[in-house]
């Protein structure tokens, strides 16, 4: 039985019907990880306590106390703290860090009876778009092992695509769930800012970070989202929100979808453009109305995003000094010298670039010119989205300018890499929900992703639209050989 091809709902039926046990399902996935992960390198740490969790889940199932995720094996991005299970952030700085507490999302999933197969690879401190900045080495794209899986949640997306977990959690600060999900041909949601608690997520840019699901379908993502959403007294930016699962299956006829003209201009791969415009036509076939809209400040999105996120990162990463936890250097005669040496040795090149940029943007004489102005541009962009949503239900855009590229084609210029985030950062800047799903393939059979961006807290609405598209057009491949 190809259990790794089954949806959460199908597995739920098998578990509740007694066709399989949670232990059998967990063992099935652990065996797949053992056999296939050496090729893919999606996992940083495999959870040795997974079988014990499965036993506890099976007891709940037998007692008739199963919830939607009881006994379902999941993976977690390695920047989500898990008590007693190593959480590295893919950095030398935290390579042996064992958290004393779990993130709220991990607690919620454990309470729901989910099983943690392990911690998934990522770009160091979630800074990157290829998973090549990980201290633990690259993850490969399961569609083509010579290609990047995207990032920063590249391990999460690759593991879901390759059937090394049923679904996974990632985090998204500027596209880190959506772009890898798009590169690996799976579905990923960046929830509305505030829908999911950030407590226990290793902080990158606190006003932009959001934890979200990556799954084989929009329906799987909806189940995971409902399990992790909600107000949390440990994160004062979190809010209560309506469940999304009950919105799945609603008719999407009459929905107005905006196509921002600026997003379909230069720099986009023709195959991506064709696939997304063809998806717009398919939405029309489903009864939706397509309308051209405008986001005039698109050119300013990338620099404004990088200034704000790097300024917040510089502040958040100032805590790493090797004193209470994290890498401690053997160099340096004094405390201050040792602290600098710990940071020099513990952080990789990309993390250092972001810290330098952030401190520059916040420094005397440059604060007004860069950071403050970026915050004003952020507000301007938020207003442009608000204007679009006065006449549209959501926006349809590509998820990335290209499909997954080869490791050998990766660009050395960091600014060129930053520009590739053009389609994803807007949802973070404006705090809006955005879902990506597959809308086609390149001639080399690499998946192409499209994104639907919705109004704040309309996560259920865009998931339902993605679900309607997935079920009608079935672009998602379910199996391939590694």
């Amino acid at each position, binding site marked *: 039985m190809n259990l790794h091809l089954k949806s959460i709902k199908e597995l739920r039926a098998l578990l509740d019907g007694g066709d399989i046990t949670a232990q059998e399902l967990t063992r099935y996935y652990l065996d797949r990880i053992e056999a296939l992960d050496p090729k893919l390198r999606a996992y940083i740490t495999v959870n040795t306590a997974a079988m014990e969790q499965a036993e506890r889940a099976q007891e709940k199932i037998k007692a008739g106390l199963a919830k939607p995720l009881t006994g379902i094996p999941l993976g977690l991005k390695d920047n989500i703290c898990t008590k007693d299970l190593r959480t590295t952030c893919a950095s030398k700085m935290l390579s042996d860090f064992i958290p004393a507490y779990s993130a709220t999302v991990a607690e919620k999933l454990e309470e729901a009876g989910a099983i943690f197969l392990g911690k998934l690879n990522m770009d160091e401190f979630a800074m990157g778009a290829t998973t090549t900045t990980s201290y633990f080495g690259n993850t490969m794209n399961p569609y083509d092992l010579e290609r990047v899986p995207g990032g920063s949640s590249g391990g999460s997306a690759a593991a879901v695509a390759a059937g090394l977990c049923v679904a996974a959690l990632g985090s998204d600060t500027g596209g880190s769930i959506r772009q890898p999900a798009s590169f690996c041909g799976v579905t990923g949601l960046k929830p509305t800012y505030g829908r999911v608690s950030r407590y226990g997520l290793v902080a990158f840019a606190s006003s932009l970070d959001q934890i979200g699901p990556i799954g084989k379908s929009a329906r799987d993502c909806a189940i995971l989202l409902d399990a992790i959403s909600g107000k949390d007294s440990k994160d004062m930016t979190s809010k209560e929100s309506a469940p999304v699962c009950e919105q799945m299956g609603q008719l999407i006829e009459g929905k107005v979808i905006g196509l921002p003209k600026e997003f379909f201009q230069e720099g986009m791969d023709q195959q991506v453009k064709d696939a997304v415009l063809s998806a717009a036509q398919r939405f029309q076939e489903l009864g939706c109305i397509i309308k051209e809209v405008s986001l005039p400040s698109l050119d300013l999105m990338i620099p404004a995003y990088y200034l704000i996120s790097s300024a917040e990162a510089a502040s958040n990463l100032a805590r790493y000094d090797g004193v209470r936890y994290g890498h401690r250097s053997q160099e340096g005669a004094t405390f201050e010298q040792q602290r600098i040496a710990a940071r020099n040795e513990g*952080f990789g090149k990309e993390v250092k670039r972001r810290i*330098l940029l952030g401190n520059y943007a916040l420094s005397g004489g*440059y604060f007004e010119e*860069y950071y403050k102005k970026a915050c*004003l541009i952020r507000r301007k962009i938020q207003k442009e989205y608000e204007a679009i949503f006065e006449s549209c239900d959501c926006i349809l855009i590509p998820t990335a300018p290209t499909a997954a590229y080869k490791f050998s084609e990766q660009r050395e210029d960091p600014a060129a890499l930053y520009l590739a985030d053009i389609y994803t950062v807007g949802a973070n800047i404006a705090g809006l929900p955005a879902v990506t799903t597959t809308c086609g393939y390149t001639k080399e059979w690499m998946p192409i992703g499209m994104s639907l961006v919705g109004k704040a807290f309309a996560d259920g609405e865009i998931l339902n639209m993605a679900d309607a598209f997935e079920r009608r057009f079935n672009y998602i491949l379910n199996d391939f050989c590694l």
Partner: protein
Amino acid sequence: MSMRDSSWIDHLAALSSLSFEGEEKERMAADMARIMELMDRVSQAEIGEEEFLLEAEGSMALLREDIPAPSIERERLLSNAKGRQGSYFAVKKIMD
């Protein structure tokens, strides 16, 4: 600080509790110069500041009430430290 060269990197490194030497410093200076060309779009942008200033500054951080509550036990919090003395974090000397 108008020149974005290696001395500029020294200044940024000092702000960041990092240090760079030799080739690494040269490479970082080149990378940061390219990144700043992109960021300069923000400094050069013409934006009606007044329109957005009040709204941008009007958002206040929400804080929960400061009520004492049980915390994580001390031993667990000390367990990730590379240097400790009893129940203290041990570090190299701070002052001569």
